């Protein structure tokens, strides 16, 4: 057993202060990444600071033309939110596909994006919807937030407080589940803004984590339909290749999932 001290702050400021006091602090949200990592002795923080119970960090509300999802909102909360289902139903659908019911009742959007697992679902949605990540220090556009494998623009002590999503005209998500982990072997989120801009983001595919797919964006901008992607060929360069899928298989899945995202 390694010793660690668990803290339950009641505000973001209190959390940040506790983080600074600890010698090797870690924030805890849903716990589905940090706790297994601690169990496997891959991390042994001196202090674990629980963000999940800070009341100000849970909730979903309309905001202007879009919506704001507070960082400690669970996947279950997003999946069954009437606000999300009305504004961006594809986002509620994505949240409903994460893990299993037990995971969905614990995992949070803030925790997911802070971790930036290359096969996580949310990064694809944030990138495709041109979302903004709000922290206790600044606002970061999704395109600047996700930096690579398990890497984000966050500073060590920075706390995500919310994610804001602008209004969207059309959006869809389709995911081919990894047969064992049920993460995205490849998942694609496509979105069209009211101004006609198209963004398509793929997760589970690239060695660098979530990525935009320009070939798909160009084809869909001209013609927003699954058949518009029939002739598109996605390059396998830079894509992951492992036991469950070669890079060319993943390249194929990017196209197929984009087509299926449009059917939703």
């Amino acid at each position, binding site marked *: 057993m390694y010793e660690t001290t668990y803290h339950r702050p009641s505000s973001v400021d209190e959390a940040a202060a506790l983080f600074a006091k600890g010698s090797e602090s870690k924030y805890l949200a849903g716990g589905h990444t940090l706790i297994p990592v601690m169990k496997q002795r891959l991390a042994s923080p001196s202090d674990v600071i629980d963000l999940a119970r800070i009341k100000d960090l849970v909730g979903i509300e309309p905001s202007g033309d879009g919506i704001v999802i507070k960082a400690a909102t669970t996947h279950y909360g997003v999946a069954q939110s009437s606000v999300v289902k009305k504004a961006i139903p594809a986002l509620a659908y994505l949240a409903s596909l994460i893990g299993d019911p037990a995971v969905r009742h614990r995992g949070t959007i803030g925790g997911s994006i802070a971790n930036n697992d290359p096969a996580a679902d949310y990064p694809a949605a944030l990138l495709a919807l041109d979302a903004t990540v709000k922290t206790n220090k600044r606002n970061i556009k999704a395109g600047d937030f996700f930096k690579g494998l398990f890497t984000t623009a966050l500073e060590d002590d920075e706390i995500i407080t919310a994610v804001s999503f602008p209004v969207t005209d059309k959006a869809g998500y389709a995911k*081919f589940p990894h047969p064992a982990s049920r993460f995205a072997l490849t998942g694609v989120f496509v979105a069209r803004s009211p101004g006609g801009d198209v963004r398509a983001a793929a997760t589970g595919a690239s060695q660098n984590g979530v990525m935009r797919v320009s070939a798909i964006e160009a084809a869909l901008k001209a013609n927003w339909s699954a058949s518009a992607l029939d002739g598109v060929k996605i390059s396998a360069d830079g894509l992951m290749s492992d036991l469950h*899928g070669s890079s060319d298989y993943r390249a194929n899945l990017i196209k197929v999932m984009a087509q299926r995202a449009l059917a939703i």
Partner: protein
Amino acid sequence: MTVYTNTTPVDAYRGAGRPEASYLVERLMETAARQLKVDPAELRRKNFITQFPHQTPVIMAYDIGDFGASLDASMKAIDYAGFPARKAKAKAEGKLRGLGVSCYIEACGIAPSKAVGSLGAGVGLWESAEIRVNPVGTIEVLTGSHSHGQGHETTFAQLISERLGVPISQVQIVHGDTDKVQFGMGTYGSRSLAVGGTAIIKAMEKVEAKAKKIAAHQLEASENDIVIENGEFKVTGTDKSIALPMVALAAYTAHNLPDGMEPGLKETAFYDPTNFTFPAGTYICEIEVDPATGKTSFVNFVAADDFGRLINPMIVEGQVHGGLAQGIGQALLEHAVYDANGQPITASFMDYTMPRADDLPSFKLSHTPTLCPGNPLGVKGCGEAGAIGSSAAVINAITDAIGHNKLEMPATPDRVWHAIHG
């Protein structure tokens, strides 16, 4: 030659070599049918053994079977004749359908001790049972056959309850405690009912014989006129009877026993089977492959098995379901992999794909029993069959769907997609 390895040792798993053998044979049969351009089911039927007993070249002598019956049952259950139309309809909708047949047979109820001795085994493969009828008429069965989830506690108690006509709550099965059970030869090879159950029957025969003697003596009748019905020892053709608890009490109070009879009602039997048993059956699987992703979905999976007599049909179904899940897991999902440096890369269930309920179809099971002549119960064993016949059925179906016969297990979406697209 010496080999040093850090990789995990392998050992018997459900089916213990029979899934591998069955897979080889049934993939060969399917391949032969395709090359000869004959119907796969008819090729099996043409080659079925129909005369029994049938001595194989390798120790095993099949005692009884009706392989055509299980093939017929499965073909009917899956609507074999209607498949070409279903395949064409799926093709029009952009999906690839395939049908795969698998006919298995296995040697269970292991084993005649002489036979395994001749093969080099250091032990005999009999089984033991001690039956204790207590003075109040409750019954304890000490069996060498330990249950690890197969429901022996229920099935074995059923044997006693049905023979004597007593409530099953009056029977207790004791197993798995070497402090209590003198000796047992283990639970594997689908042997517990055929061998362990028969040991119980043999011990029961001794108990019943002694109990009848006591009852006959008390009722002043001939032993031969005593029948056991609904927990009572009756003189046939009369209304004279003694209930089992009273017979038991008489045995233990010993106030009025036949001359020379020892008190008590407790008997032991060791049973050595005279032959293996030979469960067999036909599994047929219908799948649909999505050519865009290589993913295989089940349309239907039917199983027709000959397990001889079924003592508890619900438990048998459970055993077949479990075996099918494991065989399908092997065919589609499970794979323990080491990389070139000897590092295990499927070291957790995040990478090792365990079958889950939503990976599996709803199975349609049926039974075409031929009673085993080798044991008084007529049973053959059913614990492993599901894992034995199923993998070949799945791979035969997928290779039928994609029109490409070279496909290794597990047939993951990645592998199937590459088989289709190159």
